């Protein structure tokens, strides 16, 4: 800092034809860089460097037990293309993401609209729906695991109303539905709060004008609410899709990828390959595939925003 303070003084004594090095612009630049430096250092240390290492690992066969680390070139990538288990893993990931994103966004929006009314008790319900967001994920999942057992709470309740409930975590379809629902209720509160904030930002006079024009409640929602909160819809959908592609703990606790491989999503498969089967190089290759998928989906959404997001057109 003393360096910065002294420089201009010395510059003053120089012949006038030489422009001072530490111009206002340069000083501002340096200050800007210094301000972002901590954040930048964090990104480099915890994102860029690990990402580079993952690429490096993917070119190697790394056996942690033997302590060997051999360069294999593109072999892991070839193995990925030939892997018969990759297709089912991608399918499970797609099913999970599609199910979660659709259910999460529609439920979150529905709850937000409902709780945006000026009625008694909305604060209680807002708190109720938001509280799972702050619960530890694994604890939340373990409790659901008990509820979803064949002789667990959910089937006990269904039994009371005369329904013979399925063995939730042991059927291919019901296991997938179960992990989606567990994740849905865990995080729907977060999107709900984001939607609530957006809803409250919609100017009341627009609704009034629409009402005077004779628009029905649905038309007001469709033509006024949705366009005005579309930036939030974009944000929540990107967050939810990215989050859904990274689902791990629920699968590890509830199903361990089963029954069969019906809930072996990509992240769980990469965990199996890297940490259980000790194929760290191959695991790194799968994680790069996941990275490319997340990147592609995010870029796609970002590109498409101009078509439907208000303020962006």
């Amino acid at each position, binding site marked *: 800092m003393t360096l910065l303070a002294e420089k201009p003084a010395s510059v003053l004594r120089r012949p006038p034809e030489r422009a001072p090095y530490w111009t206002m612009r340069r000083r501002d630049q340096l200050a800007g*860089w210094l301000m972002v430096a901590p954040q930048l250092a964090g990104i480099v240390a915890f994102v860029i460097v690990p990402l580079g290492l993952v690429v490096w690992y993917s070119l190697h066969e790394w056996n*942690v037990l033997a302590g060997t680390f051999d360069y294999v070139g593109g072999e892991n990538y070839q193995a990925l293309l030939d892997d018969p288990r990759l297709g089912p893993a991608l399918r499970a990931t797609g099913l999970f993401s599609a199910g979660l994103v659709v259910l999460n966004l529609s439920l979150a929006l529905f709850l937000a609209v409902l709780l945006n009314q000026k009625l008694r008790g909305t604060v209680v319900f807002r708190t109720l729906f938001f509280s799972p967001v702050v619960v530890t994920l694994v604890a939340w999942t373990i409790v659901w695991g008990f509820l979803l057992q064949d002789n667990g709470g959910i089937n006990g309740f269904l039994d009371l109303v005369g329904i013979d409930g399925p063995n939730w975590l042991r059927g291919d379809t019901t296991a997938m539905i179960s992990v989606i629902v567990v994740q849905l209720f865990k995080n729907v509160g977060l999107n709900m709060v984001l939607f609530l904030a957006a809803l409250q930002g919609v100017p009341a006079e627009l609704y009034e004008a629409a009402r005077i024009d004779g628009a029905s409640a649905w038309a007001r929602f469709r033509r006024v609410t949705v366009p005005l909160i579309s930036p939030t819809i974009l944000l929540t959908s990107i967050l939810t899709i990215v989050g859904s592609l990274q689902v791990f703990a629920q699968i590890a606790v509830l199903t361990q990828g089963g029954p069969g491989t019906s809930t072996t999503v990509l992240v769980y498969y990469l965990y199996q390959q890297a940490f259980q089967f000790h194929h760290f190089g191959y695991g790194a290759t799968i994680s790069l595939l996941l990275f490319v998928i997340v990147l592609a989906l995010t870029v796609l959404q970002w590109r498409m925003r101009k078509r439907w997001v208000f303020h962006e057109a």
Partner: protein
Amino acid sequence: MKLRTLTAAGVAAALLALAGCGGGSENSGADGPIDLRMTIWSANAKHAALFDQIAAAYKKDHPEIGKITFEAIPIDNYTTTLTTQIGGGNVPDLAWILESTAPDFVTSGALAPIDKDADLLPSATANWEQDGQLYAYPFSTSPLGVFVNTDLVTAAGRPTPAQQIAAGTWNWEQAAATGAAVQAKTGKGGIVVGDFDFKGWDTLNSIWAGWGARPWSEDGKSCGFDSPEMVDAMTFVHKLVFTDKAMPGPGVTKDFYAGDAAMVLTQISRAALLEKAKFKWDLVPLPKGQAGEYSVVGQAGIGVLKRGEHVDAAKQFLAYFTNQENSAKLAQFFPPPRKSQLTTETLAKANPLLKPAQLQSVVIDGIERGDIKTSHTGYAELQQTVRAALDPLWKPDADVKAVLSGVCAKINPLLSK
């Protein structure tokens, strides 16, 4: 441009400083005390107390040793956590190793060779040897037995297994009938296979070994799931769950130790869990299978990690930890692999909860006769592949033979590797 270079240099310097901090704090000095760390999967307070007692006695005679830590890692993810530690450079000096992953650890060269005591039973060391060299001490050689809640069996109006043994009728048909009677009459669970939960399929070897079935051939090259013995055994298990209703079904948990099941097939080292049991219990050998009497032994080894910081100190401590005297102490939890200690007298002193007859029939006969549990190189991948392929079996209308052929189709490529 200059500024950009400056910033980049600053960031690089900061990173280096960070990395430097991490690297500098490691205890690598040869002069300071040597700290040893052993990973184990038991968090049992009594086990820990005994280990600490042995470690304290060792430290008295070995001033160069600082701390000896026994780090408990939950059994569910034990091997995964251990290998992740090794992969991350946080290598423990000693580690318990499950019998199923013995070939992976022994053949990979991860373990340092150790000395073999002549007192060790050859059947106990076989799993841990390569080219005549021992790579882990067969620390616990624990036969599987059946713990019986005799209160529940009697309440269901069935003769107890002990009575059936006396009458010569203790076989799987009778065990199934008892399990079914308990489930039907008391609403509690019948027969529970310890650690199975319709995922840990390898624990079913406590049943299928009675049919003479094996998951794969002894050389590990060919699949045994589609063998007639295995089909018969698994048909029996399927019937046990879905037709006889003698075993709690998938997704149903019944805790034997809490009094919720009639029988559990597990290692005798679990007897410690029954100390405060509020019901009458007994320990009996596995029922007679279709292929006659049989026994299955679970095993754990302790190895010295070659890439640990203090290999020689770890070897010395392991030799002390498992010597004649300490092995006798450990025998109360972990049946010793030593010929000289496999007597009812030694075992009875260490296992006050078990009667001499139980020790003779289950432990001593079991270890001498028993098959060691399944193992193979690349075990984790095989384990998961079989688990996934076997899942369709756990439905009431499953075609046992077709499912088992499917298992072979999936694991043949792995076995032939």
